[in-house]
């Protein structure tokens, strides 16, 4: 099909084309001139609605929700610090994404390693609470996030009672074969840091006696640790000689 020359188009049509193009450009420029404003994080859709909207692809929806959440801190013209995010809504988003894909560790990794790193202790505790609640639902698969949460409580928040609570939950619930011994020993180390030497000895002794740890190197390490705790205890209470 041959085309006619450009001159065959009426002038009024060219004028209309130029005008509409100009209008479009002006509209876009006017939109840009308004100062960028950060949107607050809205609450997520319920898991049931997200599942319905996913058209039978809950795993893809879960990943898309997490990527959307992750990109929320970079909005048009504005970069939101984590401190500005509503952490209650954030926890709900993570929970919905995890409900859609319960085998994935993505939401827990984001909570324990990214969002818990916020410089606001209240928000960090909210993330640790989310990790703790999620861990209870599937300890065998979610123990790494719980171990990370314990470390955040101990080293970032310097909240040893909270670290102890998390470590104790880890020892009591993560009893699967795939859970390494060090994860279950965390409670004893936190107790040692809290100068609760008797309790630390009981936890370590209990772990050895329970037979959950069979590796000879692990057992030797724990025996050395028991000796160290005994020495510290003796140093802390000089009159105490019954350990010798």
């Amino acid at each position: 099909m041959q085309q006619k020359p450009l001159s065959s188009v009426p002038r009024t049509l060219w004028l209309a084309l130029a005008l509409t193009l100009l209008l479009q450009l002006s509209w876009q420029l006017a939109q840009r001139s308004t100062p960028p404003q950060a949107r607050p994080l809205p609450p997520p859709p319920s898991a049931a609605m997200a599942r319905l909207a996913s058209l039978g692809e809950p795993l893809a929806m879960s990943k898309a929700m997490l990527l959307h959440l992750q990109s929320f801190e970079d909005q048009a013209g504005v970069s939101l610090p984590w401190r500005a995010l509503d952490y209650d809504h954030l926890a709900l988003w993570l929970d919905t994404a995890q409900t859609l894909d319960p085998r994935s560790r993505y939401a827990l990794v984001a909570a324990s390693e990214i969002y818990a790193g916020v410089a606001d202790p209240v928000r960090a505790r909210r993330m640790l609470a989310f990790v703790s609640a999620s861990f209870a639902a599937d300890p065998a698969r979610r123990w790494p996030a719980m171990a990370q949460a314990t470390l955040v409580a101990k080293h970032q928040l310097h909240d040893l009672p909270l670290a102890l609570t998390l470590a104790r939950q880890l020892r009591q619930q993560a009893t699967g074969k795939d859970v390494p011994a060090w994860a279950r020993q965390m409670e004893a180390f936190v107790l040692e840091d809290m100068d609760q030497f008797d309790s630390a000895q009981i936890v370590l002794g209990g772990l050895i006696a329970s037979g959950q740890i069979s590796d000879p190197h692990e057992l030797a390490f724990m025996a050395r640790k028991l000796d160290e705790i005994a020495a510290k205890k003796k140093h802390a209470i000089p009159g105490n000689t019954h350990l010798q």
Partner: protein
Amino acid sequence: MWRPGLIIARYTLLEALRSKLPWLFVLAGCAALALAGFLQQLALTESGAVQAAILSALLRLVAVFLLVSFVITSLAREAADKGQELLLALPMPRAVYVLGKLAGFGALAMLPALLFGLLTSMWAAPAQSALWALSLLGELWIMAAFSLLCALGLPHALPALAASGGFYLLARGVGSLQLLAHGNTGAHDGSRQAIAWAIDALALLLPNLDHFTRSEWLLYATGDWQALGLVAAQTAIYVGLLATCALCDFYRKSF
């Protein structure tokens, strides 16, 4: 008697190949691959799983959309060109025409199933990818049969496209609708109960496509022969049902 049917199937396939449809499948696969690759770069962890989940969902939608569009526009064009009437004037039963068309569209569906199955094997175990591809083929056959029914029964392409889209959305979402209807989200009054029954009745009529082509097979290798057997049985039953419906409708039609 079935030789004319095979010829119709062959020419249906040839039409698809000559209308550059295979290139559209390739192009769509490349675009989905690029998008999934971009999203993989954004992922904090499980980047392979992110890519596989999003890619498989996109590929599935693209395959269904392109195949359904082709089935409907091809039949609409044939009806408008009077090619359909010419074929029906030949000494053969109407069933040969309908089943020949269905066979041609079914053969065409193997192309995206194979191509997209190969793409997903980049992130998943080959056996799981094969299972996913076979399940996609079953899903495409059901959708091809439904679009054929709509295209033969409805006078224009747009209502047929809308009906096929609505059917797909319902078939994919009816399981979630049932969960919502039976969920503990409020008082169990009469109207709510009636809606729940209506959705249950609808679910009985629809194929359970939300059990087809599942991403979790690719991500967590949970697919097995039993899952494939269920998909195959559902495909056979539903394609048979839709083909029978299309034949009943087509035999009643006067030209």
